[in-house]
């Protein structure tokens, strides 16, 4: 199942893209990160008890349309975003990257993640789960149309807040 379903995209290209995205997020280059998104992008973190649910009928942890996502970045860059000031140090490990389907110009991508979040004087907080993204080629360039980060833990518990981009 690893062969690309669309000859115009390879797993290597998707991996490069996801690793680049992770690098931008870990370095808090959030405006550059926004530039990776389509103009109608959405970002979801489903609730831990209903990982497969629909954000229109279920309370999510995060369900941003592009408007709120841009506002989220404004907030994250503001020193008054107390939960992320000073910004957490994060490190993302992304693995098991797969192309799971191609539908027209949309490429379904799955990947596993482990995100370690460090704040001064605090024990590490570990966010482990998998991504389900929809990527789209816009003018020949890969962009994120939908970004879904699904956590494995049964509750957020010691992770606390999802105050950074997961």
């Amino acid at each position, binding site marked *: 199942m690893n062969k690309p379903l669309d000859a115009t995209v390879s797993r290597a290209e998707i991996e490069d893209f996801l690793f680049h995205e992770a690098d931008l997020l870990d370095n808090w280059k959030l405006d550059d990160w926004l530039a990776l998104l389509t103009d109608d992008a959405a970002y979801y973190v489903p609730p831990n*008890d209903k990982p497969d649910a629909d954000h229109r*009928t279920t*309370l999510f942890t995060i*369900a941003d349309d592009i408007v709120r996502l841009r506002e989220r970045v404004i*907030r994250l860059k503001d020193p008054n975003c107390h939960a992320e000031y000073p910004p957490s140090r994060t490190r993302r490990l992304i693995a098991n990257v797969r192309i799971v389907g191609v539908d027209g110009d949309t490429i379904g991508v799955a990947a596993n993640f482990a995100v370690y979040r460090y704040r001064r004087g605090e024990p590490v907080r570990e966010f482990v789960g998998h991504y389900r993204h929809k990527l789209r080629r816009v003018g020949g360039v890969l962009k994120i149309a939908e970004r879904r980060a699904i956590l494995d833990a049964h*509750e957020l518990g010691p992770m606390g807040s999802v105050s950074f981009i997961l």
Partner: protein
Amino acid sequence: MNDHFAPQYAGPGGRSGGGRVQPLVRESRENLSFAVNREVFVSREIFEREQRAIFDRCWIYLGHASEVRNPGDYKTRSVAGRPVIFCRDRSGQVHGLINSCRHRGAIVCREREGNARGFYCMYHGWTYNTDGTLRGVPDEASYPPSFDKAAMGLAHVPRLESYKDFYFVSFDRNAVDLETYLAGAKAYIDLVVDQSPSGRMEIISGIQEYDIKANWKLLVENSVDDYHLVATHSTWLNYMRNSGVNMSPPKGSGLLLPTKGLGKDLGNGHLTTDNPNYRGRPVARWISVYGEDAKADIEAIRAELAARLGEARAARVADTNRNLAIFPNLVINDGSSVTVRHFTPVAPDLMHVTAWALGPVEETEAQRARRLHAFLTFYGPGGFATPDDVAALENAQQGYASWREVPWNDLSRGMAKNEHTNTDEEHLRVFWRRWSELMEAHA
């Protein structure tokens, strides 16, 4: 003379060397001073005493009737530290069953939720009906005649009562009835329930469960403390402004946003803020964030409200935001959306928080989606506001490591005023007076 605030080490639990109990909450109506000793946030002894004096005696939130809508539906919960099955039996009766096998104690129901014909203990295989009665015991013949199967059902919580579908538990058999306990809080629950044309609200699927590394009482304070809005939540205020929501306070007032809000004492330690709404409500005040296409729909909701309740009551329901704290650990926020949030102390410096969204059962899919969108703008672990509240509480908790050197929190704000606004601390003092009363009764 300010020895009122002078550092005085009273020893763990507020007992001095001479055995005299030092008050942990100090109020002087003459000096207009009110202070809470920071030891209450760090002491293991006080934490244990709270369990007995407060959580074993008060009514503690269990769940909402809509969560166990059908016969056999169940949810497993932790209530005041006890494992409880909240369920509806096959005949439709709601129960709070202690989730511990009567044989040798194993947790009987290990799933978060579901619909069951009965409960099966994985250890030795005893089975129970959904009303708790013991149904089956493998090799029953080996038990002596003294073994009374009829008396060996799952234990029920000592008291289980509901008000408008909100179920509460008390572990004190002699507790006053729930409605007496809720006192003035009932009228504020009514304001929430009145949003539904049929008076039926429901818990919406999706739970937010997260830890705050802080003492549980700090979340009571924070939930109703509007003084912190501007400093803690400026990024949320920016977001509202950027979205075209008019955030300017009504003219002729020097108060912080929102103006003319009040903090109210509802009796028995319950309290609420009661604020004019300026930030939009799914029922029923449109703001630009909802989008133009939502305007007519919200007007229709408003019209239904007015037709059913009359203009005055409709305005009361739709044009005020209320953060209601029901003593000791339940908060119902009715603002940008409705949240039901309760929190369980785990250690002096740790609580588990559980939060749900609540909405009228009649909502259309579009209305429900709007409600959930509005919820996430402000509330919850991924919202634009709650993570900063969590940061504030954890910051405060870290500060209390110096409780011996700097022992007193000041909660005197607004004491010289006759009218207690939402940015004063009178309603916070209501909580502390009740806390202190119960703790002293159990000293």
